[in-house]
């Protein structure tokens, strides 16, 4: 379990500090959907607004800093790395002949549009290699901004929700949203129960893999001496063992379920969250109104 304890990214952390914990999980899911969906076809201003909004929510959440600083830092690094890639990668080869004539051919003509290129870094000579020229144009700036803000909002909003929402509550919220599908025969209760079992099973699979890797490292296997064929055989045998262990765990889990005499429970019966009090009702009302407001702002100013 060491990995799970050391890198608690995307996992629920129990506690009571923070108003985010007291918010209805359906509303939280609604906010996350807003962060995922409204950047689609939106302008740069809206995307930056969302990223700063998310940062504000994080800082104002009253969550202990030790819970969110690491995931936030990782999301920022990932977003910035992808943004830098977008900034420097060529947007495509420019056509050899432009479709319009050079403005210098027209005496006295004023060029009112900005230059397509913002920054040009001359080719760099790195020993025998030549790097560049690195060109940052309007398109690449736009691409970098879109990519980095989207990655940040998607990763961090989901992570913030997972940190503050018990899995049972999340599954219940998902079931609430898809409950109309029960009318056409979708087995919502079964799906939600299986999802909960799967959420418990994931750490077990991770633990199995960790145990196998430990067993491997304790045998001091030298990959270089094994060669390609030997290494490949080793990977296959570990994968086979992992699969066998996972199936064994699944079998034991099924036995435990049979021994309890429980084969299915609806998601609402497995929620541990206490009933909402007056303060959390107000919180839900305010956050619901804000959510509607943000969606309407997106409709009006999202293209900017």
């Amino acid at each position, binding site marked *: 379990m060491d990995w799970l304890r050391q890198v608690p990214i995307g996992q629920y952390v129990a506690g009571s500090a923070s108003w985010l914990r007291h918010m209805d999980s359906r509303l939280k899911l609604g906010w996350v959907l807003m962060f995922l969906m409204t950047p689609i076809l939106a302008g740069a201003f809206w995307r930056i607004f969302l990223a700063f909004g998310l940062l504000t929510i994080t800082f104002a959440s009253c969550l202990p800093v030790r819970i969110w600083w690491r995931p936030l830092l990782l999301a920022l690094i990932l977003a910035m790395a992808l943004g830098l890639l977008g900034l420097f990668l060529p947007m495509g080869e420019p056509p050899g002949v432009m479709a319009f004539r050079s403005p210098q051919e027209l005496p006295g003509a004023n060029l009112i549009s900005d230059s397509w290129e913002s920054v040009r870094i001359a080719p760099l000579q790195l020993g025998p290699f030549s790097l560049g020229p690195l060109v940052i144009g309007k398109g690449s700036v736009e691409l970098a901004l879109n990519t980095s803000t989207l990655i940040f909002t998607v990763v961090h909003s989901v992570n913030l929700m997972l940190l503050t929402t018990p899995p049972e509550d999340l599954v219940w919220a998902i079931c609430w949203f898809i409950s109309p599908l029960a009318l056409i025969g979708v087995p919502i209760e079964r799906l939600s129960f299986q999802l909960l*079992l799967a959420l*418990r099973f994931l750490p077990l699979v991770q633990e199995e893999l960790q145990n196998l890797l430990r067993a491997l490292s304790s045998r001091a296997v030298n990959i270089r001496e094994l060669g390609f064929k030997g290494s490949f055989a080793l990977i296959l045998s570990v994968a086979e063992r992992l699969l066998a262990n996972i199936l064994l765990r699944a079998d034991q889990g099924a036995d435990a379920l049979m*021994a309890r005499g429980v084969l299915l429970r609806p998601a609402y019966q497995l929620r541990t969250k206490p009933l909402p009090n007056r303060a959390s009702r107000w919180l839900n009302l305010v956050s619901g109104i804000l959510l509607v407001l943000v969606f309407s702002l997106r409709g009006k100013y999202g293209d900017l």
Partner: protein
Amino acid sequence: MNPPRTGNKASADSHILRFQKVCFSWPSGEKALDNCTFSIPGPGLWMLVGANGSGKSTLFKLITGLLKADTGKIDCNHKPCLMFQNPDHQLLLPTCGSDLLLNLPEKLKTQKRPNLIQNALHQVGLKNMEYRPIHTLSGGQKQRLALAGALASQATLLLLDEPTALLDPASQAAVLETVKTLCHHCENPMTAIWITHRLEELEHADGAIKMEKGRLGSWQNGTKLMNRLQPLAVRQG
């Protein structure tokens, strides 16, 4: 069957569990239980010892109904709850509270659920841990959570299959103490059948029995059985 001491004043007719000439064979033909006859006369902590493959775990599966006996009769007047050696095999939901909720009767009123959960956690020393994700618990805490699950299910017969096998000495003592408390000091004492390979645990039992080749001997004082088996265990290495 003559147990040395019982947890309460149970009469001879009010057995909690009774096996009468029960036989069970695996599909391969291997006999797991051979004319097994024994009874649990009353609440308390009853321990089973025996070599691997002697039929101890099969006995538990027959009590819970996971397996059906070939012949013989099993009378069980109490609701059993099976606890596995590795608690990870039976804790099936992501957080402590939801795993306990899974054990509650389905028709129980929603308002009564939180109290039952908190009581069960309190009894095993895991107070206020209903929101804790299970993967963050230690081995001993997981085992005690499994025990809380048994309490929440309102089972009165605990079947503990080597519950301390994977635990450190401190956690072993904590689990053993919890079970002893449940079997002796509560208003409604429970019955626990505990399979063990740790002979030193036998001295905590109200009665102990040795299982060999699918058959059970007679109930003995735990300490006496421990003293009798210890030299054999040392000789076997």
